[in-house]
């Protein structure tokens, strides 16, 4: 590092401080936005894993012509005989339209005392001890429970069945806060109630959930089920978890990121092209040439200017983004990712530091900015300086 050139870069920046402050602010905003998107994405991904833990190792659904149809529960008898299968059971779930809120509720029927649900159920549900005292019951997110209470003034909800009759279920508990993101619009009920609400006849189920003894064997078992029932769609837990992560990674996060990066980078480049190599800067480079600066000296000066601006922006943006996401819980941005639904979940974003993505953002934005400064300076440093010196 040439200390003299660094000092010159600092003096030069001080002399043109308004321009550098503008670029610093724009770069900082760009980085704050990018870092916030990465923090929220990583945090949501971690949050979603709480609920994903409860997924079966393999899910088998009936698929005809691209349509999901009910699957016969008699197939469980064949599946259970496959080596490595610990147990298999029918699953009952579906969407219920709650017109008042213009929202779809995900109704899931479960046996709360089944072994496979015990741990996840313990983690996900508060006040679940009341369930034993009810034949029919429902558990939902805190926000939805409060909404139902506010609308109907009671801790119960009447579902309309496909045959036009109503079935009223008491709300016996709410989900624990750490699973609120995925469960905000979910309603857990007893199996019989779920079947009646969703119109699932006896002997049919939405899915067959298969649990394996050894995770290493899951893929092989899934392949065997797919071969045994070619009319079904067989998915492993891993695939479903990836799908959940991808939902946040690609549908919102990456789009936001690409959009933001494109917009702000374009802004900076346009600004620098429009005002960067004006007469004054051209003259400055010509003077530096005249007093014996080589093209590499001139590029070094511009590189220092760029680096100082970019590192300052980075140092500012990182703590600001962390405070915005984890301190303030990412107002507005969190809503973009999880939706603006009335019953959108209330939950705390867990702290996650996506170091790779942060480094990537720095490595993507800074070279673009640096190139927009250094390339014109390099061009000016190798062209005839006589005109600029007159």
């Amino acid at each position, binding site marked *: 590092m040439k200390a003299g050139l660094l000092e*010159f870069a600092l*003096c030069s920046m001080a*002399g043109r401080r308004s321009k550098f402050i503008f670029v610093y602010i724009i770069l900082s905003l760009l980085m704050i936005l990018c870092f916030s998107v990465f923090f929220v994405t990583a945090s949501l991904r971690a949050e979603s894993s709480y609920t994903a833990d409860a997924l079966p190792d393999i899910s088998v659904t009936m698929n005809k012509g691209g349509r999901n149809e009910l699957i016969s529960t008699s197939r469980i008898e064949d599946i259970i005989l496959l080596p490595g299968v610990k147990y298999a059971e029918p699953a009952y779930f579906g969407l219920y339209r709650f017109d008042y809120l213009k929202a779809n509720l995900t109704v899931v029927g479960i046996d709360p005392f089944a072994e496979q649900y015990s741990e996840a159920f313990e983690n996900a549900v508060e006040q679940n001890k009341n369930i034993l005292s009810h034949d029919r019951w429902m558990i939902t997110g805190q926000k939805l429970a409060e909404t139902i209470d506010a609308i109907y003034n009671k801790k119960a909800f009447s579902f309309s069945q496909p045959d036009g009759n109503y079935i009223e279920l008491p709300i016996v508990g709410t989900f624990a806060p750490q699973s609120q993101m995925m469960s905000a619009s979910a309603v857990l009920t007893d199996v019989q109630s779920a079947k009646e609400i969703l119109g699932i006849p006896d002997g049919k189920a939405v899915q067959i959930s298969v649990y394996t003894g050894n995770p290493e064997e899951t893929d092989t078992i899934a392949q065997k089920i797919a071969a045994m029932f070619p009319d079904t769609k067989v998915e492993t837990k891993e695939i479903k978890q990836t799908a959940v992560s991808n939902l946040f990674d690609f549908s919102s996060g990456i789009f936001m990121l690409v959009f933001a990066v494109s917009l702000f980078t374009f802004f900076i480049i346009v600004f620098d092209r429009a005002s960067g190599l004006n007469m004054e800067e051209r003259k400055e480079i010509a003077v530096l040439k005249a007093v*014996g600066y080589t093209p590499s*000296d001139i590029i070094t000066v511009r590189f220092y200017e760029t680096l100082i601006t970019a590192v300052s922006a980075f140092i500012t943006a990182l703590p600001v983004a962390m405070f915005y996401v984890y301190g303030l819980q990412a107002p507005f941005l969190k809503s973009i990712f999880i939706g603006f639904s009335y019953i959108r979940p209330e939950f705390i974003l867990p702290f996650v530091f996506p170091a790779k993505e942060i480094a990537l953002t720095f490595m993507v934005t800074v070279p673009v900015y640096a190139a927009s400064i250094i390339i014109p300076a390099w061009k000016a*440093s190798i062209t005839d*300086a006589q005109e600029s010196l*007159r």
Partner: protein
Amino acid sequence: MIKFTAVTKKYKDITPLDNFSMEISAGETVILSGRSGSGKTTVLSLTAALTRPTSGSIEVNGRQTAKLPEEFAALFRRESVGMIFQNYNLLPNLSAIDNITIPLLPTKITMKQQNERACVLMEKLGIADKAKTAVNRLSGGEQQRVAIARALINNPPVILADEPTSSLDAKLTDTLLEIFAAMKAEGKTLLIATHDRAVAESGIADRIIGIEK
């Protein structure tokens, strides 16, 4: 020593210098005279290897400079040439001392030595009290002296001055001529492009080369 042999410089549609030859000995003070647009500034730029001739050869201090790659041309300027411009070409955002030390920044000379050299020159030129003043707050004469100090800071053997008196009044012109006389006494080669008769008639020049188009 500066030697131009059949030098032509062409731009797209103009030819400021056509088949020009001259020879200046080391330590000689030469005035380039001629009307505006006659090519005086082009001769200075060619001497400093700031621009390249279309044809012909140029030798300065024993080095062929006409085809020097930019990296080497810059090093040549740093070591061999000090330039004083008509409009000073100072960097307005910097102080006087910062402008003067600019040529030394890419070198291995320490900051302390740089400042010491600058202070000696400022003392000599009578601007020591203006060291920390931004150059855009200095008078024309003071700016001229800052530009001279910058040209001398590397102690180059060749000094090129382009219309150095055009912005100065008679008193400041006399002061400048005294400074040039001191440079001459130190054995520097001076090439001064001017159409100011006062300079031509001051007796400072060993020779006057007229450029006619």
